[in-house]
């Protein structure tokens, strides 16, 4: 079968940085071609070149046998190449129909919109993918997962021959992921070619017909899922095998550092009790929305706690704001680094010391910049952020390095208890292993660590004990050999 889209020997440089080197890549109609690689491997650039956002320095893009030069995303869409971006490209204050058909609305004379036709056409497309969304509802009233699906509807409305999805499941709940898979199946039947970019190898193996691996801007492997496995892909991605993605488990026996008794804040969580020991990593497992994050935020003082008691080092603890929590030694590494964790347009250095500025001020409140620079440097070394220059803005770091910077920020506050919520979301394998190692080292130094994660392997690999959440309650606490995928799922779903 001939490919519908072919990329031949594409090169792209940004300044002195060679991002794509001689990349060739093709997709066939009705097939899902997964594109994997570490952050910074060139996946996004390749996608942007195909989608018309960047133009290649050399090489060809061939659509349906014709060499194309694609100058902007709009042109790409009209040619039949649609990109579903990770950051949604919808406008929340407009209706679903208007978002799908922006600039292509059905009109009456003089360009006035024909609302009835517009909404009918949108309804037809939504019906095609079997989703019950109202065309006249504002996009902002739907969940992020639904918005992702509206994006796909928009792509379909262009009669797309090729749809490129960039990390489409990163913000979706489990049911939404299933719905997305169903839609992808439907698109395949219709002969649409799909490029699927993802960090989650599990889902790549579930959905892809072929897998291409990028490393440092080169295509280093092209495999069929049937004749490959995750270990081989990881090996291709990092250029070495990572046997120790997860560090050694801890030794138990530390005294209790944080104890929660009967924490309730209905309807989010009810009667949650647990004890966290020094030097241990306690995993919080459960579905999204089962109360894991809400409990963590309440302990950190970010949300109000309805009732219940918290003890830190045996002392009763009242926390009304994150600031108080940090002063007492409880630090929360947020699940959403872009919105809540980092000041994107500020320097890495300023971010790292942001939660501990008090340590660096003299009596008059004037900051000692030299001390800040030294401290910041030591943390950049510790968590291995690249590039090492801590004066560059965080927005210019890759996702993995942003996450490391966030970890450094939390560490600089000298925590007694660290709550890490999805510490490796959207992070490449190399950075992931490093973050796991850092968390374990922190525990070994006597800090109590709580890890909240939706990725079961991470909970399994990292935790000394696992508290399983279901519908706002802790339903079981597993330890030792009881910690297994089967046991956690049994308790979390039932």
């Amino acid at each position, binding site marked *: 079968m001939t490919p519908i889209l072919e990329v031949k020997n594409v090169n792209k440089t940004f300044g002195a940085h060679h991002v794509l080197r001689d990349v060739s890549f093709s997709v066939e109609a009705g097939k899902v071609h997964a594109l994997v690689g570490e952050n910074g491997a060139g996946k996004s650039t390749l996608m942007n070149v195909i989608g018309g956002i960047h133009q290649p320095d050399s090489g060809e893009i061939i659509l349906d046998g014709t060499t194309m030069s694609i100058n902007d995303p709009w*042109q790409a869409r009209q040619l039949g190449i649609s990109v579903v971006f990770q*950051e*949604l490209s*919808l406008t929340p204050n*407009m209706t679903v129909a208007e978002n799908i058909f*922006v600039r292509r609305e059905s009109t009456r004379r003089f360009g006035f919109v024909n609302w009835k036709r517009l909404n009918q056409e949108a309804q037809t497309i939504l*019906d095609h993918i079997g*989703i019950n969304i109202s065309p006249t509802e504002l996009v902002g009233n739907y969940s992020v997962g639904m918005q992702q699906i509206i994006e796909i509807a928009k792509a379909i409305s262009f009669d797309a021959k090729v749809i490129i999805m960039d990390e489409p499941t990163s913000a979706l709940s489990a049911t939404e992921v299933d719905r997305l898979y169903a839609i992808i199946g439907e698109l395949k039947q219709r002969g649409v070619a799909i490029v699927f970019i993802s960090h989650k190898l599990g889902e790549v193996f579930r959905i892809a017909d072929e897998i291409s691996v990028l490393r440092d801007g080169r295509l280093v492997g092209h495999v069929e899922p049937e004749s490959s496995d995750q270990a081989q892909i990881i090996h291709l991605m990092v250029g070495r095998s990572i046997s120790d993605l997860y560090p050694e488990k801890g030794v138990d026996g530390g005294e209790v550092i944080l104890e929660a008794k009967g924490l309730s804040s209905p309807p989010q969580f009810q009667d949650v009790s647990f004890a966290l020991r020094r030097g241990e990593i306690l995993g919080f497992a459960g579905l999204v929305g089962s109360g894991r994050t809400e409990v963590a935020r309440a302990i950190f003082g970010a949300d109000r706690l309805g009732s219940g008691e918290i003890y830190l080092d045996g002392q009763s603890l009242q926390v009304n704001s994150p600031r108080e929590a940090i002063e007492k030694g409880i630090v929360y590494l947020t699940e959403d680094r872009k919105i809540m964790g980092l000041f994107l347009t500020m320097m890495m250095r300023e971010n790292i010391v942001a939660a501990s500025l008090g340590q660096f001020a003299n009596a008059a409140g004037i900051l000692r910049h030299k001390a800040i620079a030294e401290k910041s440097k030591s943390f950049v070394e510790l968590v291995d952020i690249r590039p090492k220059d801590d004066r560059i803005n965080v927005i210019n770091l890759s996702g993995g390095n942003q996450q490391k910077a966030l970890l450094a920020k939390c560490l600089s506050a000298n925590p007694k208890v660290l709550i890490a919520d999805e510490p490796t979301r959207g992070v490449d394998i190399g950075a992931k292993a490093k973050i796991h190692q850092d968390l374990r080292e922190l525990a070994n130094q006597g800090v109590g660590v709580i890890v909240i994660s939706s990725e079961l392997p991470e909970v399994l690999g990292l935790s000394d004990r696992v508290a399983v959440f279901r519908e706002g309650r802790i339903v079981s606490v597993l330890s030792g050999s009881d910690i297994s995928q089967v046991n956690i799922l049994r308790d979390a779903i039932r």
Partner: protein
Amino acid sequence: MSVNTQSVGGEKSPRTNPLKSVSLENLQIGGLTLVIVIFSIIMQLNFPIFLTGQNIGVMMINFLPEAIIALGMTIVIITGGIDLSVAGIYPFAAIIVGKILLVGVPIPIAIVLTLMLVAALGATNAFMSNTFRVHPFIATLAMLLILRGVNIVITGGAPISGFPEAFGTIGQGRFELGGFISLRYSILIWLVLALLVGYSLKNHRYWRLSYFIGGNRRSARMSGVKVERYLYFVYMLSATLAGIAGIIVASQFNAASNSYGQNLELRVITAVVIGGANLNGGMGSVLGSMLGVLFIALIYNAFAMSGISTYWQDVVVGAMLLASIFLNEILKRWRSN
């Protein structure tokens, strides 16, 4: 053709309260209308001349420039921008049209020349903010300051007057129809412009792009909207409307002065925000903005009538501005729960 899985509903909060199914925009407009009605009733009970045709006429004439300029400002704010220069363009247009008329140029040509000139100033605003990535606040502030100076230089600080008698028709003449309708031409001009801009902003595909640009500029770009080019249209429109208001006022007083339009930009922005527009872009409507202007007109008129020190009127308008922003925020939170 449909996916074989069951069709699943959108995950939104269930709508039990009927008020929650009304759009935020309509809720805000409804609230503002209610405030205006209650305020008018209270005033009418205390001052029986408040709602007479004559007093309403005075209010409309006094706030006609604000009402016309608010049409442009609404679109500017919907796109996420702001235009302070209108308070410079408004007297500038009055002065320029007067100067051209005094040279003896025919009236229609003088008007067209003036409007072309102010449209070019609007284009300059857009050029500054597009090309040099200057925030529109700064670009239009610079334009405002420059024009204020220019206006004084041209007039020498004294009003100019003595325009041809026919020119006065625009601001003073009346449109009569069968003895029933008798409207000033200036009010007719505003009415036509407001209907045109309001309807287009609701229903015309090109005008609606302003909501996309203000709601999510990146997404607008991705959808192929030429954002920079569009902003030329928006700022030229805003400047042209300010120019029309300036020509009307010159005709009405048969004079032009650099002192016209003091703090006009702030009154207009206040009215537009009270009317439900959001300075972050993506929200706003002509109906809301017109109600906002009406509200301010009522307040100013009421203070003048009641004899309470007019220094208090800005306190009330400011408080209403805060209240409307506050209300907007509360409504948003209440609905997202």
